[in-house]
């Protein structure tokens, strides 16, 4: 199969060793799959943000919130949805298809926490769930906080007084 799909006039014989074949397949694969991955990430990630915008619009119109105030409850609703989908095992299927499209939105943050919590449940509530929930998300929280601290320091040094 692979030999035929290689196309062109040059036919290689089927006597390729598995190693040769892997190397050969690798030269064919990446460029196409990166583009495809990006398209899928774009569509799924965009769709999640679209859903977020719809929820935000509901908060603005039904609860009469200001757009700035509505983004926090929107994020919370998306996180609840993500936790439910993760619990049902659906989010991981979406993630396999979408790659970064489902990992980059805040739903992916919740997914990483929820799946870590579920996975380590058998080790107990304290050591398993409590200890492992931030296994992936922890790096995001730590680096975000440290970066925010240094940005704050920079604002202090430049004397903006927090205006930005």
């Amino acid at each position: 199969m692979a030999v035929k799909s290689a196309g062109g006039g040059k036919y290689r014989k089927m006597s390729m060793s598995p190693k040769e074949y892997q190397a050969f397949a690798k030269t064919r694969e990446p460029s196409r799959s990166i583009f495809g991955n990006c398209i899928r990430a774009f569509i799924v990630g965009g769709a999640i943000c679209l859903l977020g915008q719809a929820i935000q619009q509901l908060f603005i119109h039904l609860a009469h919130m200001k757009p700035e105030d509505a983004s926090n409850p929107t994020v919370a609703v998306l996180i609840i949805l993500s936790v439910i989908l993760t619990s049902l095992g659906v989010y991981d299927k979406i993630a396999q298809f979408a790659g970064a499209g489902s990992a980059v939105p805040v739903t992916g943050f919740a997914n990483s926490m929820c799946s870590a919590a579920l996975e380590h449940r058998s080790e107990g509530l304290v050591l398993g769930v409590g200890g492992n929930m931030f296994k992936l998300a922890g790096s995001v929280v730590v680096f975000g906080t440290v970066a925010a601290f240094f940005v704050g320091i920079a604002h202090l040094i430049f004397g903006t007084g927090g205006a930005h």
Partner: protein
Amino acid sequence: MIFLWAFLVGGAICVLGQICFDVFKLTPAHTMTLLVVLGAIGDGVGIYDPLIKFAGAGASVPITSFGNALVHGALDEMKKTGWIGIITGIFKVTSAGVSAAIIFSFIAALFVKPKG
């Protein structure tokens, strides 16, 4: 119109993440960390707020907005209470996201058996 921009900007940030995965071969954790730091710096120099105004959820749903919100809390509190606000204010705005994720993940772990 805001829906279109939400889709396009949100999708574009996800493509940025995908490029980190595929082209630079970063792990998901490294990619998320990078995006959060970018979001924090973006708010520090004042370009993230206009982006949120322009793209709505397209900018506030991706993880970059987590970094943005951390800086936001720190700077807002700094405006009110002076330099100590950098420490006391960091988690003020992100509370919704972090607490919701912790609480519901914990509840899920109590009641759900893992699948797959």
